């Protein structure tokens, strides 16, 4: 009843190929955008911005990038943290060494540098696949951990190997209040989500999906697997690199390689799978789930005044988090995005399901 597309005729190819062909989807997206751009800035607290929304958006961007690789092209990567690290350090070096550069340009260039690195580490995917590849990408993770803590040039010869970045200046303004940072990140993420949405329904996106579903078959129908796989690594790394730069510049401000360690890679792959492989919306839902859940769990005892020690709370948090991951995988292995699709299906038939 609420979500019914009958009566919406597509009379031209243009209408058929629209980004969101169904009116209800367009309304929904417009609503989400309105909430994100207007309602949230009006009501959210500083805590919500700095501790939840900004990290959520940045990690959602990284998850989106990873989803392009894992969900659309079927190449599993456990080295996403490393690519974020490359993006962050690339942006740092660009910003420090060429101070005239506009920060947005810095972020994009950092994305390009990550792209190159990502393609280099994507080369093994031409030979090995599946879990073997997943584990091989861990090599990237540990190598980058080492590289950025060992080569002093990357950290501008700082004695401790940690770096810090200047305040964010863009177009002559400084963007340092939580709301401004939120808008900056939201703007970038929205643009990238749009790009991703268009990419996956283009020629290249379809070649990724063909490779994912069966690479040998894809090759036979004329898709070059090398081109498809490496381009997936490239695009994915670009997204992830920009996310890394944002994480460093906007969220942390100062960091060491440990800020992008192997746990970051693992959380990102959780986000993608819990959210839904091969779904743009899923990347956001997954990121929200993985970020909010521990924080909420962590605050529940304090909220209801249950007197348990910090350690007990932390252990319980870990247990519940683990149990919920398993629970979600059991009830819906295709992720939260699939749940959303089911909900839409229900809404279509409601209230007369037969």
């Amino acid at each position, binding site marked *: 009843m609420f979500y019914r597309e009958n009566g919406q005729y597509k009379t031209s190819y243009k209408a058929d190929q629209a980004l969101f062909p169904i009116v209800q989807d367009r309304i929904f997206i417009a609503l989400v955008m309105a909430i994100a751009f207007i309602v949230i800035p009006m009501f959210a607290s500083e*805590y919500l911005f700095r*501790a939840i929304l900004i*990290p959520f958006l940045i990690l959602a961007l990284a998850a989106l990038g990873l989803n392009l690789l894992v969900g659309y092209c079927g190449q599993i990567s456990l080295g996403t943290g490393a690519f974020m690290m490359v993006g962050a350090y690339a942006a740092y070096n660009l910003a420090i060494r060429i101070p005239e550069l506009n920060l947005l340009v810095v972020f994009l260039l950092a994305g390009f540098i990550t792209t190159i690195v990502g393609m280099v580490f994507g080369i093994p995917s031409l030979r090995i696949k599946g879990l073997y590849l997943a584990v091989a990408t861990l090599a990237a993770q540990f190598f980058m951990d080492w590289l950025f803590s060992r080569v002093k040039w990357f950290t501008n010869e700082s004695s*401790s190997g940690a770096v810090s970045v200047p305040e964010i200046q863009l177009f002559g303004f400084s963007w340092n209040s939580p709301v401004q940072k939120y808008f900056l990140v939201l703007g970038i993420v929205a643009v990238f989500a749009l790009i991703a949405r268009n990419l996956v329904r283009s020629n290249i996106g379809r070649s990724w999906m063909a490779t994912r579903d069966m690479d040998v078959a894809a090759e036979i129908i004329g898709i070059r697997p090398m081109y498809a796989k490496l381009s997936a690594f490239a695009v994915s790394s670009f997204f992830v690199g920009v996310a890394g730069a944002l994480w460093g510049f906007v969220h*942390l401000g100062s960091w*060491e390689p440990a800020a992008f360690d192997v746990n970051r890679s693992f959380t990102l792959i959780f986000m993608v799978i819990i959210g839904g492989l091969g779904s743009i919306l899923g990347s956001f839902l997954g990121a929200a789930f993985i970020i909010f859940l521990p924080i909420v769990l962590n605050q529940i005892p304090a*909220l209801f005044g249950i007197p348990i020690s*910090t350690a007990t709370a*932390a252990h319980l948090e870990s247990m519940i988090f683990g149990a919920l991951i398993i629970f979600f995988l059991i009830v819906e292995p295709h992720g939260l995005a699939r749940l959303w699709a089911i909900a839409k299906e229900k809404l279509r038939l409601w209230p007369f399901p037969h």
Partner: protein
Amino acid sequence: MKLILNICLMLLAASAAFTSAAAFAQANEQFVPALVYRTGPFAPNGVPWANGFVDYLKLVNERDGGINGVKITFEECETGYAADRGVECYERLKGKGPTGAAAFNPLSTGITFALTEKVPADKIPLITMGYGRSESADGNVFKWNFPLMGTYWTAADILVQHVAKAGSLKGKKIALVYHDSPYGKEPIPVLQEHAKKHGFELLTLPVTSPGVEQKATWLQIRQQKPDYVFLWGWGVMNSTAIKEAIAVGYPRLQMYGVWWAGAEPDTQPAEMAAKGYNALALQHGADKVAVHKDMMKHVYDKSKGTGKKEDVGTVLYNRGMLNAMLVVESIRAAQGKYGKKPMTGEQVRWGAENLNVDTARIKALGMDGMMQPLKTTCSDHEGARKARIHTWDGKSWSFTSDWYEADNKMLRPMVEAQARKYAAEKKIEVRDCSKET
């Protein structure tokens, strides 16, 4: 399906609740946040520190009725030693209490880096007792950072002084086994400077975090036979290092840990075999003095203690306690200027910058013998640069040296140069302390 939707709704409700659950203001209270880690790879060392920290706050409430009548409230937040969790905790706790958080003590170099960027905007001091950025001792640039009682550079300098006392270091070899992170890399510039000055050879051997894999490192040490090994580790890396040293037969007498590598959790796993292992003491060791009696009487006997009774007075417990004491004294100093009411972070910062914990005050605190006088100024945020060595005798730690004072003539220019570089990178203004009152 229903179940999932219900859970989602519950989560939504919960998240809505905690955002609106603003700190309900209660008049005469001072809020002190406690960033702790009681889980994860560094928990064995994080737990006693956290216990000492909150126990001391409890003690001040129970024994003195707060700071000049202002009760202390506190809340722990688990960081797990991770920078992003630390930032979340910081954002969560910074606005609590009627005047906001008094000061943050993250007990993690990584979190310190991230918070250093955030505290100036929120006007909350960041107290990093015995850790953090070494260059933040320069109050001209780092207005909000207080690496009280000693930085890593101070530690490195004192260690070299100590081994140099036993005989000239010319032509000798010193190996630095360090945690491969900013924390472990901090002392390298000072040690290199000393290597030039004293003419010894410095070997730097990094150990990847968390440090459970050190066989190759110690085989290298067996090959190279350095005269001394400096250990710059934390958590499991320390106990592993000591065990590996035993396994390759490196004499423990020639091993010196920094003050983060000299506590019970580090040596206890090896127990008797670790006998003779030395470490710097950040002024205090595993002492038991008057304040511990108070602690027993006012906190533990009323069964309000956080940890186990036996752990009171261990090295890291004492460090947590001293750390809390410095926060409390900063608040007290601020009250001396601004009046006996809850202080804002900005006021506490003034207090931390004008700390004067002299011999009489130490005695009054019941900490006689645990520390040396400490006095901060606008440009010196470290306050004291003294330390001594303590040695593990198989059962407990005991002092084996006199006090040393770090050579500030050599360190200060390095601190200032590094701090100026930071100021240039960050484009922040350097304040002129001679003009401040």
